[in-house]
């Protein structure tokens, strides 16, 4: 009876699922917001949000937890993208949390504001009374994330309890919470790094320039290439050198490493990733190396 084969491509399936999740949140929560860092996953998430509500505007604000240690190119991109969409952008600043005495700056060569972000994030969620917060995390990134739900419940301390997660069946998501609690929502849960890049290529989405190969002064630490910057403390035994690099992930300058690469286009990046044998977090994130359960521990506290 059917004249054609209703096969749906993997990107179309993933996109349809993510749109469904976004609409579900917009319908069932009072005050959602979308975490937008200017990184590739949140850029894809933002495109999904555009698609989910078109021709209406995105019905929630964007929020960025700014450590003050982000790459300028990414901050510029963030601001420009929010303006293009006419979206409201809330910037929650880790510096403000430090100034207010909510957190204490780490000291020493490996000082990073990565972990401090959690407090800033949770304070901002409380201040704005957000009840749903979209994040761009994917299950393929890390094994604690592999077990996290699409609708991930957080108690009124913002904590994640991995042993007490709500079962998630079919495409039915439980949005019930009490006041003060919230849900982290991950519409890209089932995407892989390669899916994200394939989607960026297919959609022709603009991304910050540091994802592409460029010449940069860097130094080596723990097998990672860290940038020359005022906010990264470099020892005398860590000489600077110039290299052609690009970023596979975009986070804090203090804990995000560059990879040596000549990939100058999205196509070349896809080729590179398809051939790589190291995960993106393994290659570029010092924050995950602390222990085997580093991510689980940070997530329990309320990290992204």
């Amino acid at each position, binding site marked *: 009876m059917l004249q054609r084969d209703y096969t749906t491509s993997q990107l179309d399936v993933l996109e349809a699922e993510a749109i469904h999740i976004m609409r579900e949140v917009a319908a069932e929560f009072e005050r959602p917001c979308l975490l937008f860092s200017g990184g590739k996953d949140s850029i894809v998430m933002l495109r999904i949000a555009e698609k989910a509500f078109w021709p209406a505007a995105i019905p929630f604000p964007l929020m960025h937890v700014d450590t003050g240690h982000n790459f300028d190119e990414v901050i510029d991109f963030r601001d420009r993208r929010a303006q293009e969409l006419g979206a409201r952008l809330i910037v929650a600043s880790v510096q403000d949390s430090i100034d207010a005495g909510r957190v204490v700056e780490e000291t020493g060569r490996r000082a990073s504001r990565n972990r401090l972000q959690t407090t800033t994030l949770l304070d901002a969620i409380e201040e704005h009374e957000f009840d749903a917060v979209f994040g761009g995390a994917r299950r393929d990134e890390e094994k604690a994330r592999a077990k996290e739900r699409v609708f991930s419940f957080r108690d009124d301390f913002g904590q994640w309890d991995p042993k007490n997660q709500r079962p998630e069946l079919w495409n*039915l998501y439980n949005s019930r919470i009490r006041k003060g609690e919230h849900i982290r929502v991950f519409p890209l849960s089932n995407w892989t790094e390669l899916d994200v890049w394939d989607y960026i290529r297919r959609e022709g989405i603009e991304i910050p320039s540091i994802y592409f190969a460029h010449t940069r002064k860097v130094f080596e630490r723990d097998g990672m290439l860290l940038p020359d910057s005022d906010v990264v403390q470099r020892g005398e035994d860590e000489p600077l050198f110039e290299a052609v690099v690009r970023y596979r992930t975009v986070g804090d300058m203090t804990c995000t490493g560059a990879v040596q690469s000549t990939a100058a286009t999205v196509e070349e990046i896809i080729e590179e990733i398809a051939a790589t044998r190291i995960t993106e977090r393994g290659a570029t994130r010092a924050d995950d190396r602390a222990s085997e359960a580093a991510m689980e521990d940070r997530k329990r506290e309320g990290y992204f």
Partner: protein
Amino acid sequence: MDILRFATAGSVDDGKSTLIGRLLFDSKAIFEDQLEAVERTSRDRGTEYTDLSLLTDGLRAEREQGITIDVAYRYFATPRRKFIIADTPGHIQYTRNMVTGASTADLAIILIDARKGVLEQSRRHAFLTSLLRVPHLVLAVNKMDLVDYSQERFEEIREEFTAFASKLNVADLTFIPISALNGDNVVSRSENMPWYLGSSLLHHLENVHIASDRNLVDVRFPVQYVIRPQRATDHAFHDYRGYAGQVAGGVLKPGDEVVHLPSGLTTRIASIDTFDGPVEEAFPPMSVTLRFEDDLDISRGDLIARPNNQPQVAQELDAMVCWMADGVKLTPRSKLTIKHTTRTARAMVRDLHYRLDVNTLHRDEEATALGLNEIGRVSLRVTQPLFVDDYARNRLTGGFILVDEATNGTVAAGMIIDAR
């Protein structure tokens, strides 16, 4: 390239982790840093082999106890397909996790140890697969190397399992003799079993036809969200009113006559809109926005169908329910929140007909409650009409969840078998 979602059930003893590890490894979805971490941990613990279950057992508690507690999702791709594995623990105390993993699966792999044959847990896994209507079932008879690759042993297991499966609703059952450890019949055909003429497991996963598993016959479009642009700058869309949702069944086309539920009013589809422009047809699992020729009062929780093919409009449901809560039990008179497609209502358990023994399929009609991981048939009364199909006909319009109104936890998964 499309996506196949499959669930695997079993324990480390069955070689499940080894099998998944091999599929991931051979398809290059395991990365060097992940493998190094696993090798390091295996060494630290004095394990003689590289324990690939460490790749999937991501939570601290799981690693400490050496067991899989929760559903882990893993991803790999071949040039033909992207695969999503819902890796679920096999033990009876994790029935709810297997039910969760199976709910979205196109295919399930049940592992059987060739030496042990069809065990109680194999029957339980097969039953849950059939209860959740996973369209394709693969029985992977593992550890064939330990029975000298014996065709006779394989046939014995096949016969025994086929006899059991005839009592279940299994549409497509495939048997594959494998050795996950040695890689026999996992990625490529094994030379050790020339008597086996079927495909390797990966070849089967790559080629099993799933496009027609979705219901493409009964048009079902649960309205999820109403799109009304508010901004004055959008002159072209000033009067725009679209109904967004994900198609749960059938094929919709502009010009089609449709019926709106609950009103029963009919109209025609004026346009099927997406951000990328209007489309000529919409089918599962597409997320689209419908506009209609007539101005009807339509809101979230309503449903669009065809006038000559409508779902049941029901407030009385019979369903198989898997109870997923610790502590609280399901009993007659329990009051819960029900979420079905995009509609949320309250439900009361009118009757518990029987509790099913998931190992023997025996129906205990004397049962007065369902506890954690127990499955039974219940009658529910719902405060608002739901637009339902039998779960066997459509998993999306036949499935629901129950939410505890005190704890807000998801406490049950339900599969509708009869509605009035």
